[in-house]
């Protein structure tokens, strides 16, 4: 299993722990990551660029897809937002031949052409569809028994469903729950799991953003979750990074550790928490790890 690896901006910026955990976990699972072929790729636009100019966003994504095609490898990302934006762009490009042809004119100047074969997949989907839940289960060396985890999908990996291949892959809809159970932990289901984390309006409307963080973390905690897991680094920046502010605004304490998807898997695969930078979170994971008898 080898992938053209598109890590996105945030795992190489404000969430280096996601990048580190991904490398460790993929090594264990036998997923080979080729970062070189995507080194010249750009940001997907994250939905923000698309506000100004959707076609510009689609051109940049077509260029990224063309780079992956050139490597001959399937494309994998570890960011839900990248996944959503890429899936939406891909749908527009594949639904309209003339549009794709026009965009390819822009790419031709650097000798690239998007032929329409890219099928970008988040690590979460790769786990379910390529690695397989049973294989993942068989590789667990330290089942996380008694660990109550709330899944947090966020938006871009569940909506719009028409662009995310849910008809073809219905298993994607409860993929996080499947992974939580595969590593021996217990799912804490809660209604906010597919709602907005607050990140996109963090600088625009901080009060609303903080309310979203407080609602989700307190709901999950109220239902007995010891931690939350997310496949999206932007959700992590909000739910982890802004949790102290959200708690202060609500005049309460929250202290709910937020794990990146590969960090949760890594704990069950016996990877050193420090190697996955679990000690580099805003909300400390120390108490959680000691309860799991996994010293940081």
């Amino acid at each position: 299993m080898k992938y053209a690896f598109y890590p996105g901006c945030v795992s190489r910026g404000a969430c280096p722990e996601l990048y580190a955990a991904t490398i460790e976990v993929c090594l264990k699972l036998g997923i080979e990551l080729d970062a070189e072929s995507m080194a010249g790729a750009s940001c997907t636009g994250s939905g923000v660029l698309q506000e100004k100019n959707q076609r510009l966003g689609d051109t940049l994504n077509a260029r990224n897809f063309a780079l992956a095609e050139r490597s001959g490898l399937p494309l994998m990302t570890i960011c839900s937002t990248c996944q959503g934006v890429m899936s939406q762009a891909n749908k527009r490009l594949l639904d309209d031949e003339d549009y794709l042809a026009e965009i390819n004119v822009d790419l031709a100047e650097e000798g690239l052409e998007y032929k329409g074969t890219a099928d970008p997949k988040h690590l979460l989907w790769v786990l379910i569809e390529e690695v397989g839940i049973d294989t993942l289960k068989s590789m667990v060396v330290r089942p996380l028994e008694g660990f109550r985890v709330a899944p947090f999908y966020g938006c871009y990996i569940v909506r719009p469903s028409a662009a995310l291949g849910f008809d073809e892959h219905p298993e994607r809809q409860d993929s996080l729950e499947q992974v939580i159970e595969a590593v021996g932990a217990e799912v804490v289901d809660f209604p906010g799991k597919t709602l907005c984390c607050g990140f996109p309006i963090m600088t625009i409307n901080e009060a609303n953003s903080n309310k979203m963080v407080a609602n989700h973390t307190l709901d999950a905690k109220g239902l007995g979750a010891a931690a939350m897991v997310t496949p999206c680094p932007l959700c992590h920046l909000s739910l982890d990074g802004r949790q102290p502010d959200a708690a202060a605004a609500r005049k309460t304490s929250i202290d709910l550790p937020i794990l990146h998807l590969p960090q949760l898997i890594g704990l069950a695969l016996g990877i050193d928490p420090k190697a996955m930078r679990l000690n580099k979170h805003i909300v400390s994971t120390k108490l959680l790890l000691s309860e799991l008898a996994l010293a940081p």
Partner: protein
Amino acid sequence: MEVKLSVKRLNPDTDRPVAFYQEYQFELDESATVLDGLIKVREEIDGTLALRCSCRSAICGSCAMRINGRAALACKTKIVDATPANGAPILVEPAGNAEVIKDLVVDFQPFWDKVRAVKPWLQPEGPEPEREYVVSNESMLHLAGVMSCIMCGACVSDCTVLEVDENFLGPAALAKAYRFAADPRDDADASRLGALNEYGGMWDCTRCMQCVEVCPKDVDPMSRIMALRDKAMEAGYTKTYGARHAEAFAGSVKRTGRIDELRLPIWTFGIFNIKELLKLVPVGIRAQLAGKRPPLFHKKNPGQSNIRRIFERFDKKR
């Protein structure tokens, strides 16, 4: 077929109104919709159940409610499709983000107030034309998508911003605002966009796509909000944090191929905006202490000249 509904009920005309779920079980034809089921309950099983409905064919927009936790028109949702695989009852609840009047009936006044607030009528300027204004097919087709809104409020029910802030205009009203702002016969762009640029307007949307997903008429309200943002920025409303963020974001990708997380908030707020920048200091210190500060400088992207070329091409096209 056997039908099981679990309906959330609330009667405020009691001493202590408490919501509860009531189960109904009955037989109905395979072709039946959730609305058919609810009407059967009201007519034959329990006359105290309150709900709104009229056309039964997804035109009037009266019967939006939450079905299995998601906003939908009861008349457009077939019981066969909504019945959970495990045989559990279909969960039927009133629309969200609204006061419940009774059972499945919610107060729509705030919805209408917000639609009215965007002045949903044409405001032409200048002397009265001598003959009728002929609009091109192309621009009407573009608007037809928004015009198919039936004001059912499904998008408002599941909007994640309204859940935390009732002052947000919401997807339905903002989509309606776009319908008029983008109409070639309308000349009130400046006042419309100016008003929508304020708190509670177009920039408060989180782009969560709930409205896109639940709209029964494919109005795609979120894309209309994005189009409003583009229109506002084009019209020179570039001072909001939202507009500045979009501008700074594009600049960052153009220059470096990626998001420059360290500088983006500084550009968004402006380097002389001491009040906002001071607020960033504790966040920055916290990230620094946790070992999560983004790098000061990133490795140069080998595709940078081509990324910039694509940006410049679009700058020229504008």
